[in-house]
Structure formats: structure tokens, C-alpha cells
């Protein structure tokens, strides 16, 4: 039997498992192939929902569904933590058992991990909306925040959903205006490089909007440490910035599993950016945030990569030569306030065009978020 193992039950791993269940339907039913999805979390989490939690528009429960409800019955689902990858012997080891699992092809889809502890004072002094607990704490803090200085600081690059910090800033500006509190709140957005975003067209778009909406912009701003008592940020460049409410995008890291297996530094898997095959080992792929490719760590990337890798895995399982490749396709909706949004798409080496924000695009984004569960099932 040809065994395909997928580690990680986020967007990439779940879409991939379901695509394979469809593409290898006959082989699975004949018992010639096994598709096994291994995830440490019995719940699947749709992280973009967390952006709306601080504003009271969504709840953490809205972001979560049991993964067994999303995965095709032909996929073997294992809820367990993979603790080791032996790429020489094609074997996985687990946290709570002494046995190991052989694979013929392996896909790592373990995502990105928040690492606020790498910046002194950040965990104590900063809020974020990149996880369920952080989003709920920020919701409570924001509800009581009626005056002072709100700082949105992008501390770590790369991070999940590169659009989200700009979105949050524009949304909180609008949200405070709706409540008649904007005059009493200063807003500052900070970014590590010499513009407001890694992509130049987004940076230009955001810079103009920030100026229109009286949002301060600080660039070349790399947080060295946060003093929670003094409510002060100190930067590598020698600057200081005081805050009353700090919303920070924490540094991210990949997976220890990756580093320990020698597949890439900082936990990101070194891959060929078109085939998504690991450069340091045979029979290993990576998709989603954990794959080190020159595009965004975004759900759409994981989705498109999953489609490509499903084709490549299915070809190999049938003894054929894989031909599908990933061109860097990325699609993002960007909220420009509480009721308007824009939309971008690009591939490797392309600069996106930012459309004029509109209400229909905002509703399209909310509509996509609702239909995401069909995406996870591999239907969209």
C-alpha cells in the first residue's frame, strides 16, 4: 500500500486531504493507497475570523469546528502530536506512543506559531488578535478604551495574513468614529521597513488612507523591548514610543519538528517554490505557512498549494511523473473600514493592483468567510 501522511489540520492540511480523497477515490476504495491526516488539535480553526472578534462582530466559537466534520470519510484521521520526522527512514514518531508510522510521501502543513516571548515585555504589555485568547482579551480591552494612544505595531515579519495589521488599523479607526470616540484617540501604525507594508502597492494604498484618516505612520520601527509598566516601546533604531493600548503583531516561528528534522532554519521548510518539495529530503512536501516561499503566509496560499500538491502526490501514487506546479498565486480581501473592503491577487514576482474599496467587496469578504467551510471540505 502507498501511504501518504499529512501533518497539520489547518487550511492546507484539510484541503489537501479532501482533494486527495477525491483524486485518489478509486485507489482508496481498492485499498491501494492510504491518506492519513494527523493533527494535534481535534478542532479546525479558521483564523481570519479572529480579526472580527475584537469588534464584537464574530466570536471565537465562529472560528472553530471539529475536524472530523470536515474531513472526507475516506481519509484516515489521527489526532495525535507528531514529535519527530526521520526523513532517512521515512518514518514519523509520536508524543504518546512508542510506535512509529511509515510514509511513502509526507506533507508538512504545521503552520506558524506565535512567539511573543522573544521580545522582552511584549507578552505582558501587548495585545493581539492572532489567536482565540488574544482576540477575546483585546475585545474586552477595546470595549473600555475611550481615550488615549492606540498603537498597532508590526513586531514580527513574516507573520500570518500580512494584510491584517492594515485592516485592523483601518477598522479600529472606523469603529471609534462610529462611537464618537475617534477625536479622543490617537492612532499610530508602525512597520519594520521603510514603508507601511512589504508589498509596495499595499504600502502606497495604506499610506494615503492613513493620511486621510489622521493615522500616524512610523516606519523603520523594529521593536527591541516593551516596558509594560511605563507603557513604552523601545526600538532597535533607538526610538521610543508611548502607548495606552498596544496591539502588536507578535514575531512568528515555524515548527521545531522542521528544525529538528534538518528541513529548514527557524522552523520554516526550505522548498522548491514551484514544486513545494523539500530541498533537504526526498518524498517530503510543505504547504501553507510552514513552507518558505516568497509570498504571503495566507490561507489562499495554503489553499492553492494544496491543490498543486494533491496533483503531485496523486501522480506519484499512481507511478506517474508529477507535472503540477505552483506559480505563487495569492488572493486576499482587505477590509478598509467596518463596511468597505478591497481585493488583490498576485503571483510570484507580481505587484498587486489595489482596487477602490467598496461595500460589495466587504460583503464578498464576509460571504467568503461563511463559505470557507466548503473550501475546507475541498468543494470550493
Amino acid at each position, binding site marked *: 500500500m502507498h501511504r501518504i501522511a499529512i501533518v497539520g489540520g489547518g487550511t492546507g492540511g484539510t484541503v489537501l486531504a479532501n482533494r486527495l480523497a477525491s483524486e485518489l477515490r478509486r485507489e482508496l476504495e481498492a485499498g491501494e493507497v492510504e491518506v492519513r491526516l494527523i493533527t494535534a488539535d481535534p478542532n479546525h480553526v479558521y483564523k481570519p475570523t479572529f480579526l472580527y472578534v475584537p469588534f464584537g462582530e464574530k466570536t471565537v466559537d465562529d472560528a472553530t469546528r471539529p475536524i472530523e466534520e470536515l474531513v472526507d470519510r475516506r481519509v484516515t484521521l489521527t489526532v495525535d502530536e507528531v514529535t519527530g520526522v526521520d526523513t532517512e527512514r521515512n518514518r514519523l514518531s509520536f508524543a504518546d506512543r512508542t510506535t512509529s508510522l511509515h510514509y511513502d510521501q509526507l506533507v508538512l502543513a504545521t503552520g506558524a506559531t506565535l512567539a511573543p516571548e522573544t521580545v522582552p515585555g511584549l507578552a505582558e504589555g501587548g495585545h493581539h488578535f492572532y489567536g482565540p485568547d488574544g482576540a477575546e482579551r483585546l475585545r474586552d480591552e477595546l470595549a473600555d478604551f475611550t481615550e488615549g494612544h492606540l498603537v498597532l505595531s508590526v513586531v514580527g*515579519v513574516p507573520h500570518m495574513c500580512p494584510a491584517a495589521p492594515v485592516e485592523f488599523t483601518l477598522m479600529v479607526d472606523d469603529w471609534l468614529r462610529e462611537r464618537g470616540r475617534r477625536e479622543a484617540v490617537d492612532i499610530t501604525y508602525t512597520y*519594520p*521597513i*521603510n514603508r507601511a507594508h512589504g508589498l509596495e502597492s499595499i504600502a502606497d494604498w495604506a499610506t494615503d488612507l492613513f493620511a486621510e484618516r489622521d493615522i500616524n505612520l512610523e516606519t*523603520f520601527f523594529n521593536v527591541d523591548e516593551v516596558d509594560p509598566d511605563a507603557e513604552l516601546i523601545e526600538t*532597535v*533604531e533607538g526610538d521610543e514610543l508611548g502607548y495606552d493600548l498596544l496591539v502588536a503583531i507578535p514575531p512568528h516561528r515555524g515548527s521545531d519538528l522542521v528544525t529538528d528534522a534538518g528541513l529548514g532554519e527557524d522552523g520554516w521548510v526550505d522548498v522548491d517554490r514551484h514544486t513545494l518539495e523539500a530541498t533537504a529530503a526526498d518524498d517530503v512536501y510543505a504547504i501553507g505557512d510552514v513552507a518558505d516561499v*516568497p509570498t504571503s503566509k495566507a490561507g489562499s496560499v495554503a489553499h492553492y498549494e494544496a491543490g498543486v500538491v494533491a496533483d503531485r502526490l496523486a501522480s506519484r501514487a499512481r507511478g506517474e511523473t508529477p507535472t503540477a506546479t505552483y506559480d505563487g498565486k495569492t488572493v486576499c480581501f482587505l477590509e478598509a473600514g467596518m463596511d468597505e473592503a478591497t481585493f488583490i491577487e498576485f503571483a510570484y514576482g507580481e505587484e498587486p493592483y489595489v482596487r477602490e474599496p467598496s461595500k460589495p467587496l466587504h460583503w464578498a469578504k464576509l460571504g467568503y468567510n461563511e463559505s470557507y467551510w466548503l473550501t475546507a471540505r475541498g468543494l470550493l
Partner: protein
Amino acid sequence: MTAVTEPDVTIDSRGATCPGPLMDLIGKVKSLDPGTVVELQTSERNSTTDVPEWLEKAGHDLLEIEERDDHWNIYLEVD
């Protein structure tokens, strides 16, 4: 500019797209002692303008930018 032949630290960011090389540099410089000479290897043309701009802002010294066949070597001294 001073010709640099033997840097203390080399950061290989070839193949990384903007702002990868600059972020690699910023991440590393934090942990280095003053006087350390760093060589940043980058194949991203924007680094040849972004990196000097950041060095000036952060107070480090640009020593030399050397153009090779397929990349640039940017030398700097940590202040």
C-alpha cells in the same frame, strides 16, 4: 568607502525577496557587539537602497556595496 575582505559575520539572504534581506540583517544586528563587521549577501536590488537607509536611521556604518554576477555584498560595521 573601505574595502572589506574578511567580515566577522556573513548573512546569506540570496534568493530572499524584499524585505527578507533587510529583516535578516535587522534580526542579526541586534545580537552583535559594536565593531562587528557584517557582510549581507542579497540578490534583491532594493536592498542596495533599503539597507543603507536603515543603517543611517539605526546609526550603523555602511562600509561598501560590492556588485557580483548574481548578487550584491553589502558590508557594514555595527555601531
